């Protein structure tokens, strides 16, 4: 029971806004020590998992130099110009289209997109430009709301398309788990049953996209009547 103490350390540390790295390390050390590991064993585990999970940091580090270069040469501005020519574009529709494209491509096994490679340089500027084309200058709060939803569009599209493709992480992990327990399951069946939730996720994103557009319209109307 006492092993759960690490979870409490994280919750309290996050709530008190202590430096996150320190919270995480403290939680790891406390959990390790109460589970009977020595301090050096905990440090070993931190080292082992830190190296194993380098893949999480790789996309950001490799993308930022080229994205930064392109941004200096007007990539975000150009994305905005492109979207302003598209009459039907709204911030919500841009994001919904991105989520759908992300879901379809990853369900075919192709991982395009990403926060550093696509959302920051292209998707978020396009959504913001669509909102500006429709409502004129938007408030900073609205611009931030659009950007947060752009990151959400990436995550939702990424997570809820992947399980339809059988040759990637989630399905293989589940198959391996059941094989080890000698429970008979078919990868095709698991992939098939990922489809309903994928559709629900797209519908939920459509709902959020409409809510975002309505919010932006309300914001613009309020500003218009005030001036």
């Amino acid at each position, binding site marked *: 029971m006492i092993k759960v103490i690490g979870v409490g350390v*994280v919750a309290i540390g996050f709530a008190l806004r202590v430096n996150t790295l320190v919270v995480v390390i403290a939680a790891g050390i406390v959990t390790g020590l109460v589970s009977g590991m020595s301090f050096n064993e905990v440090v070993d585990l931190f080292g082992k998992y830190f190296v194993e999970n380098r893949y999480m940091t790789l996309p950001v580090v490799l*993308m930022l*130099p080229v994205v930064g270069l392109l941004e200096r040469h*007007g990539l975000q501005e150009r994305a905005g110009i492109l979207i302003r020519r598209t009459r039907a574009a709204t911030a919500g529709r841009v994001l919904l289209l991105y989520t759908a494209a992300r879901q379809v491509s990853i369900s075919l096994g192709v991982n395009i997109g990403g926060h550093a490679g696509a959302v920051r340089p292209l998707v978020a500027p396009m959504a913001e430009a669509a909102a500006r084309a429709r409502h004129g200058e938007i408030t900073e709060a609205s611009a931030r709301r659009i950007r947060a939803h752009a990151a959400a569009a990436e995550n939702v599209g990424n997570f809820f398309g992947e399980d339809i493709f059988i040759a990637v992480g989630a399905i293989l992990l589940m198959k391996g788990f059941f094989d080890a327990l000698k429970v008979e399951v078919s990868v095709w069946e698991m992939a098939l*049953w990922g489809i309903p939730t994928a559709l629900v996720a797209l519908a939920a994103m459509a709902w959020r996209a409409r809510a975002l557009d309505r919010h932006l319209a309300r914001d613009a109307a309020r500003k218009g009547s005030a001036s």
Partner: protein
Amino acid sequence: MKALLTVEFFYAVCGVIMAWVAGRILLGGTGPRRWGAAIFWGLLAVVFVGGKSIPPRFVGYSVLAMALLAATGRIAPSRENSTSRAERLAEADRLGNRVFWPALVIPATAVAGTLFLGRIHFGTYALLEPKQLTLVSLGLGAMLALILALRLTGASLAEPGREGSRLLQAVGWALILPQLLAALGGIFAQAGVGQIVADLVARALPAQFPLVAVAAYCVGMVLFTVIMGNAFAAFPVITLGIGLPLVVQQHHGNPAIMASIGMLSGYCGTLLTPMAANFNLVPAILLDLPDRHAVIKAQAPVAAAILVANVLLMYLCVFRF
């Protein structure tokens, strides 16, 4: 099988970029603070280049040192300036839509990597490491995009160096947060935290009702994913502790349906947790959002809606098919 382009190669490239950041900080700044930041990026570079060939204990103590440097405020964003909006608009005018080409090379390489490049062999060597196709395609795409971007803009290599360094310093210590949280998840798993959570849920609930069993499994996946930051880590624990005994054995549910929808319930947890820093916190920084939890707040209604749908979907299907 050996491969010409491996993921370790791209980790080493990352390490070189980090070492470059350390060098720029040392040469560019003044004052004692620059040493702290330079050591942070230098240690990170060593860990990325060395990887599995250096002892985990050295990596572990390096991580402790990096965390201390971050906690004492040594890692500050770079004060280097970028271009003004007017300059960027002028460039957007000059280059036109050609500026998109390098950005599109990255997804194009991902497609080509998955469909064709992964099958290319030279004798016993594969072109791309087969097990790491996604990451290696991404690395290759970034390099091709950089080459094209340099040709297109006429910039020198110093320019992406400067911009990459500025942007990485803007992300700062949060860059290593995803890896560190993953390590914490690993330690939780080793200590058996998940078993306790699963036992508590299984014991506390009236699982003789099928809907309760299904809801316990889905919500258990969400809760444990929120704690671990990773649905893959939650899946074996919660499926073994709640899913198999309650949904499959007690109520004769279909394990494939249960697993598939259960994993997707775990992803609802990923949308909700700061522990999944690479999806939720680092993007907030990349998008200049002052509220670090802005992405989680935007995702929360989506996660809640999908979770409710998942519970109903599993309840209606898992005992029937």
